[in-house]
């Protein structure tokens, strides 16, 4: 028989420590839906998504009940829509966004990602049309998520796209100003975007992926924090890393089980498990609280980057052995408005943007879910994107920017999005102008991959 303590440990993790599978994401290729006629393309896109994903939500719920593991979201990711749009003669990308929205509602999923363009080296047909339409598309839909990849280690950074995205982020906030600028919570700007990411808002189904695939993202910051709390305050950091590894292993094994089971029941190949610590605004589900459990008075204090580096690495080491295929973003997430501990740290002024930027150099993703003052000029947003992309480009890792200009609000005021997106204070920015630098445009060349210093 299975050990009693092991059984109780699992029950406690789920009941008291918010252990869950964050998402089952079905990746669907839409490349065979291209047509020169816009209406035909939309009809094919809708048909394919609803045909492939019709049983996704029900299967997720069945697994949830049978295994007793909460599966918070069921999602769909599709081929970057700019690629589909390229074939159309009269390009109407908002129409495609509305089609995705209808398909998402028909399948009952929580989000659909892939209203995306990959422009790290330049714009191909469809890319610019899609990007220009993002503010409108995100204002008229609820479930559609958008992402744009503007840089990579191999290609460098497309600064024309960076300049454009600064304006697009602002416009998106303005278009949804009456809903706390929620449009920007569904828009992420990437450097080195992964093609198999199950997490929103950045999920899309890359061109190298199979026709259809199941990816799973795990969660569980609460479990890691509880495991560290149990060990007490006096074990050294070697022991801390060890505890995190063991906990991450267990969390990921659960994700692997769910992924395998979903893949078997739906008859769709298993892609990857994303080894992530994804926080939620719920108390006891915070990455910041893990860092504080390690011994920091407050997340954002000096030492935060080192603590996060340890955490991120240990999560990967523990998770890698637990899963047959690992991918996506894989690491600790630090979305400010989605993490109770980060919200508190931002409110009290301990956690600042400069520290967050440093933290992104050692963990998954980047400047995520950060409310910035509503009067921030587009070129400052572009410059934030450029800085973050540079960190990703040079360090061969994924970085991203998802900032929310709080239209009509200033530092200290709050935005609230509800649900998993949470809410939090507007954080202060460095206001010196990078306008001339951004206006230059062009491309930042790809970095050296040797002489590492």
């Amino acid at each position, binding site marked *: *028989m*299975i*050990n*009693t303590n*092991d*059984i*109780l*440990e*699992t*029950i406690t993790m789920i*009941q008291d420590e918010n252990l869950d599978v964050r998402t089952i994401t079905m990746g669907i290729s839409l490349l065979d839906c291209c047509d020169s006629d816009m209406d035909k393309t939309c009809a094919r896109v809708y048909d394919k998504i609803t045909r492939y994903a019709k049983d996704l939500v029900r299967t997720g719920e*069945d697994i949830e*009940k*049978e*295994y*007793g*593991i909460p599966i918070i979201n069921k999602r769909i990711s599709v081929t970057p829509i700019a690629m589909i749009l390229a074939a159309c003669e009269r390009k109407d990308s908002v129409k495609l966004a509305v089609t995705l929205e209808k398909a998402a509602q028909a399948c009952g999923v929580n989000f659909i990602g892939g209203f995306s363009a990959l422009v790290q080296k330049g714009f191909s047909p469809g890319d610019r049309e899609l990007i220009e339409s993002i503010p409108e598309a995100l204002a008229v839909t609820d479930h559609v998520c958008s992402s744009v990849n503007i840089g990579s280690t191999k290609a460098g950074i497309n600064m024309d796209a960076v300049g454009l995205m600064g304006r697009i982020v602002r416009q998106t906030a303005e278009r949804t100003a009456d809903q706390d600028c929620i449009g920007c919570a569904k828009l992420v700007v990437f450097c080195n975007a992964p093609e198999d990411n199950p997490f929103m808002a950045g999920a899309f189904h890359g061109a190298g992926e199979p026709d259809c695939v199941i990816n799973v993202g795990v969660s569980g910051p609460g479990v890691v924090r509880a495991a560290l709390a149990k060990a007490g305050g006096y074990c050294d950091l070697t022991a801390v890393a060890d505890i995190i590894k063991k906990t991450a292993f*267990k969390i990921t*094994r*659960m994700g*692997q*089980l769910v992924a395998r089971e979903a893949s078997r029941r739906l008859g769709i190949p298993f892609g990857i498990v994303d080894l992530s610590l994804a926080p939620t605004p719920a108390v006891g589900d915070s990455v910041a609280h893990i860092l504080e459990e390690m011994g920091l008075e407050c997340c954002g204090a000096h030492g935060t980057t080192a603590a996060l580096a340890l955490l991120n690495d240990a999560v990967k080491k523990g998770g890698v052995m637990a899963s047959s295929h690992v991918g996506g973003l894989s690491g600790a997430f630090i979305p400010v408005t989605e993490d109770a501990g980060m919200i508190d740290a931002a409110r009290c002024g301990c956690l600042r943007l400069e520290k967050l930027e440093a933290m992104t150099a050692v963990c998954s993703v980047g400047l995520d879910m950060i409310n910035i003052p509503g009067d921030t000029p587009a070129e400052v947003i572009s410059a934030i994107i450029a800085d973050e992309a540079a960190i990703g480009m040079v360090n061969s890792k994924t970085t991203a920017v998802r900032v929310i200009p709080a239209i009509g609000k200033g530092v200290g005021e709050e935005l609230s999005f509800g649900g998993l997106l949470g809410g939090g204070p507007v954080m202060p920015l460095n206001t010196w102008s990078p306008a001339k630098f951004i206006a230059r445009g062009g491309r930042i060349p790809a970095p050296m991959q040797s002489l590492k210093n």
Partner: protein
Amino acid sequence: MRAVITVIGKDTVGILAKVSAVCAEHNINVSEVTQSILQDLFVMIMMVDISKSDVPFTRFSEEITALGEKMGLSVHAMHEDIFNSMHRI
């Protein structure tokens, strides 16, 4: 196919009887039972064979959770695989 039923809460008369009655009702065989007191809480763990059950496992799981709520206990039925995959390499 096997499942694990866990019962956690305050010890009272008839817990085992009531839980096993629901199992019997659905043709679910109890193969092992362990009971203990952990941190003042009554903890019972049952291994059951659900392969001949007359209801889908999800239905049974809902029923047994509802029974727990009625008795003021936290009762869960979960597929054995979750424990095996988390705690065994």
